[in-house]
């Protein structure tokens, strides 16, 4: 176990070094990391060459090697904790309620239209979906969109519905839209005194179908595994209850993995699923790079399509995934300018406060369900590691922003930005 020791463990140091490799791969195609410079409406502004893809391919191989080790490690760690004390299965536990919008479009299906979003959504390499009590209930992007609502009863915002006017009654297909849908939302900040009974956060409470759902890379692998809709390919297979993938020989030998939908949902399973999701994501990338080589060989190097900013009033939505999971952008345009821009991120879901129906947000619920298994002799030795594990399991961005309040032992750090990813 010494390998994970901070600053000195081999796995720790290797991991720190490995953070550079995907950033390099990303920068080859997107100019810099984070915040890509070459992605524009209609495609990419850069020219891609065989060299770009060779450089990407080389880095993918390093990442595949690393991920083979990480999957084995997280399997090992998870089983170690379960064997040591089965109560660890309760750390961060909550019902398996989650949401994901899928990502990685099939170029033959995607046309950017809302009218066909169900079709091109289901053709994605990661299948969109909502999971309630462990069961996949939809894979339709339109349903995922229509079911989304945001509430601010416990947040530092005014309710935008107070004026009684709902901007959009339906989505573009005529389906009824909630007044609490992001297309109808207006951000009205209302800073006020912190009150745990009243308002206590700048986060809103997004809900899907009025259910408390969480978001993460693990939701992506879950919805894809359960749906079984993944395009046929040589490396991956979604079976309906698992996701199998074959990782080719790199420096390490070729290996086969299978992530099985777990029977319990907790902090350890989130981390384990995230490790497997790295492998799954990499094999999608690997498949795409091989495809790119093939296209270049045929002389097909087009990276964009003509795009004109529409001038009339209209609404649009971006269905995508961040490294941390679900990400949707809801916009209204008029005269070629953005008139409303609402973003729902994974953390908006996960860190959300209580909703108006009294349901706590995912972090809150996970902490409430977490037993204190930490050994400590004196109160001042208490670190709260079980609760920290619960919250941090949702999101790799959380290590620095999760602190334990212990009266005079409060640890506070104000974070004004996040430079960890290109998620926007």
């Amino acid at each position, binding site marked *: 176990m010494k390998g994970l020791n*901070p600053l000195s463990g081999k796995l720790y140091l290797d991991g720190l070094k490995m953070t550079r490799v995907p950033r390099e791969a990303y920068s080859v195609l997107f100019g810099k990391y984070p915040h890509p410079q070459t992605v524009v409406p209609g495609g990419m502004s850069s020219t891609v060459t065989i060299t770009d893809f060779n450089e990407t391919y080389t880095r993918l191989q390093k990442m595949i090697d690393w991920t083979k080790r990480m999957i084995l490690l997280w399997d090992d760690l998870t089983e170690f904790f379960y064997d040591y004390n089965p109560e660890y299965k309760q750390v961060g536990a909550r019902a398996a309620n989650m949401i994901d919008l899928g990502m990685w479009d099939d170029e033959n299906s995607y046309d950017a239209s809302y009218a066909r979003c169900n079709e091109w959504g289901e053709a994605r390499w990661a299948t969109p979906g909502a999971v309630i009590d462990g069961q996949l209930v939809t894979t339709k992007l339109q349903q995922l969109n229509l079911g989304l609502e945001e509430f601010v009863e416990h947040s530092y915002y005014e309710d935008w519905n107070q004026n009684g006017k709902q901007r959009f009654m339906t989505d573009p297909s005529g389906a009824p839209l909630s007044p609490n849908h992001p297309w109808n939302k207006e951000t009205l900040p209302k800073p006020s005194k912190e009150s745990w009974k009243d308002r206590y956060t700048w986060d809103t409470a997004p809900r899907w179908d009025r259910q408390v759902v969480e978001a993460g890379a693990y939701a992506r692998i879950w919805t894809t595994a359960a749906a079984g809709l993944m395009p046929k390919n040589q490396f991956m297979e979604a079976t309906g209850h698992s996701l199998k993938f074959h990782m080719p020989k790199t420096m390490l030998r070729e290996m086969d993995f299978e992530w099985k939908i777990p029977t319990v949902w907790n902090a350890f399973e989130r981390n384990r699923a995230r490790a497997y999701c790295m492998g799954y994501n990499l094999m999608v990338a690997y498949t795409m790079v091989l495809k790119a080589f093939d296209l270049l060989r045929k002389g097909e190097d087009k990276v964009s399509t003509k795009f004109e900013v529409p001038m009339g009033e209209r609404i649009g939505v971006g269905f995508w995934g961040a490294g941390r999971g679900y990400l949707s952008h809801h916009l209204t345009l008029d005269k070629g300018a953005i008139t409303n821009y609402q973003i729902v991120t994974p953390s908006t879901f996960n860190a959300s406060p209580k909703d108006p129906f009294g349901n706590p947000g995912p972090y809150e619920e996970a902490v409430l369900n977490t037993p204190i298994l930490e050994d400590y002799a004196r109160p001042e030795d208490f670190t709260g590691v079980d609760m920290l594990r619960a919250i941090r399991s949702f999101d790799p961005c959380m290590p620095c922003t999760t602190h334990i309040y212990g009266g005079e032992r409060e640890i506070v*750090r104000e974070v004004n930005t996040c*430079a960890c990813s290109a998620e926007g």
Partner: protein
Amino acid sequence: MTLQSEIRIPHSEISRVLVSGIGYSNMSDLSFGRVLYGEMAEMGWPPHVHVEDLNFGPVMIYQWLEESPVKYDKVVLVSAANRGREPGTLEVYAWDGVLPDNAGIQACVEEAITGVISLENLLIVCKHFGVLPDDVTIVEIEPQKEDFGLEFSPVVAARVGEAIELVKAEVMKAKRG
């Protein structure tokens, strides 16, 4: 990255100096380093000086320095810090290079990975991983206004030119011979 100074200047003749300003954007006086970095990046500098944005995350920066073909002899960083001095006080000092214990260093790494931008964090992470030279000079202002804002308070704005002159003086000290 290959720097022009690496190509033109033989290492035996001149020290290489890395200059930057550290801080968040749009945080009034606390953005002193960030804003001055922008101004310094537009200025002409002697070939042994490289001005670089070092606000993209200390772990990434230590890896960038580790990979860099240029090994710097001196680093000059501009920043703002509330140390209870008279607002607008401008100080130049050599960083003592003293690191916290391992738990403190690890806390800095965690914060660095998740996006914290701070001078202290940058120095500790880079020093721990052995990519900082011994000569690290800080040009530091005492802020008056520390919340969101696009402009400096008058006492801080009045010291901008002087701070840049101090940086220039520091980089010239690094010239050998």
